[in-house]
């Protein structure tokens, strides 16, 4: 009986400590995020999928706290469903998500804390998310999002400190699963031999690279930009 009580006390203590860890990490993350009220930056998006040949997309990204963001690319846009918006803010600010501390791991030479995110809102596509938080900078350097409909997204984020205050992403790499693509040459009207030659394989993993530059931070972004 004594052992059982000791075990319960141990679990409760651990759970309490876990909650404190997560709350502290998330609070620090929010503090860092809250420093940026708005920003705009130049954006380049490069997609690498075996069967897709798309030019680099060039445009601008705008953000205004708490939740307005817009990617403005002239012409056709092809952006991954995860990774192009302010995904960290969306995850940690959703009160319906349960956050669980899950240990530490070294990512790109930096010690990170792992936080599992369990969404309690069944209507959302997100099934489970994992965040790797670099506590020395209070930024999320890696995200794994498992979705119900769109597969798994692995997101790696590199930051640079601007104006000695703000850690902003300069490169975001999204790895995602894409289904195979195949149309028979009898439909496309293509020469069969040439079609077989052009088909580079059936690799179902794709990557999307976002490169941000020329940040303008906390200088004001008009609301009208988000209404267009």
């Amino acid at each position: 009986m004594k052992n059982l009580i000791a075990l319960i006390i141990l679990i409760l203590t651990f759970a309490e400590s876990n909650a404190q860890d997560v709350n502290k990490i998330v609070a620090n993350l929010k503090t860092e995020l809250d420093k940026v009220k708005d920003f705009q930056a130049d954006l380049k998006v490069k997609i690498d999928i075996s069967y897709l040949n798309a030019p680099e997309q060039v445009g601008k990204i705008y953000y205004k706290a708490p939740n307005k963001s817009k990617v403005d690319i002239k012409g056709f846009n092809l952006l991954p469903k995860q990774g192009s918006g302010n995904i960290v803010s969306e995850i940690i600010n959703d009160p319906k998500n349960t956050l669980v501390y899950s240990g530490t791991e070294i990512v790109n030479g930096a010690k990170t804390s792992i936080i599992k995110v369990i969404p309690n809102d069944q209507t959302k596509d997100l099934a489970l998310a994992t965040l790797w938080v670099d506590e020395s900078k209070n930024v999320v350097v890696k995200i794994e999002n498992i979705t119900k409909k769109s597969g798994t997204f692995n997101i790696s984020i590199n930051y640079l400190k601007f104006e000695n205050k703000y850690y902003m992403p300069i490169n975001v790499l999204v790895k995602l699963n894409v289904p195979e693509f195949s149309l028979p040459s009898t439909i496309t009207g293509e020469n069969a031999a040439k079609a077989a030659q052009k088909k580079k394989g059936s690799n179902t993993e794709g990557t999307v690279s976002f490169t941000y530059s020329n940040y303008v931070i906390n200088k004001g972004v008009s609301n009208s930009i988000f209404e267009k």
Partner: protein
Amino acid sequence: MLMLIKLELFKIFSKWRTYIGFISIFVLIPLIHIALYFEGKKLIELGTQALSGGFNLSGNLLNGFMATRIILQSFYVHIPLLVALVAGDMLAGEATSGTYRFLLTKPISRLQIISAKYISGVIYVASLLVILMILSLGVGILIFGTGDMIIVNSNITILKEADSLWRFYYSFGYAFLSMLVVYSFAFMFSAFVENSIGPIMATMSLIIVFSILNILGGGVFVHIQPFLFTTHMQNWKGLFDNPIDYAEINTSVAIMIAHIVLLTTLTFVYFTKKDINS
């Protein structure tokens, strides 16, 4: 010579069958535009459904460039018939109507006569393609506007708007060369016989058989395909690859020019030595 060409053009354009091609283009292109207006988005969704799970797609992909490429792809099967309809009649028609001997009694060389006929036919082919280009590209852009272009075949290619228009100019130039190969076949068959139905049917049969062999994959067909002129006719699609395989395009252009030169030379030689009995 110029007068002869004018006379031949007058002959071509005084026949009803000549206008079948123009009427077809004037009727079919607006129909394709209407179909795309209502169903174009579904077509794009079908082509990009592999990406729709992980990506958000936005922007105007249903535009004049996409419409023109679809039209060009559809008409590559049908324009040869319109070309053969006129070309198959150019020499055989003279035999059918019994005007060969009358024509050849004029103080003009056979070479001049056949050259004038050939050139006037080439003008007809060019006019057909110019009308096709104006209607498909011009009207397509008027209706759907411009934008980045999506090409769905064995891969999905997206081309920037600024990188699209020039490809159509080259494509129509390529189409002109392709149709001249068809024209040269029909013109040659027309020289051999005395009834215009034969050359038209022979040309179309050749294109249909070769086109089917062209899309059959595997086995012996793959080895045959490089030797079929239809394979090279279809290589206009390579102009919408990114990057363009210029070596392949140039090879196909050279092979088509070789076809035209060979077939035309054969026709000219045959016609200048032909016994005219009708």
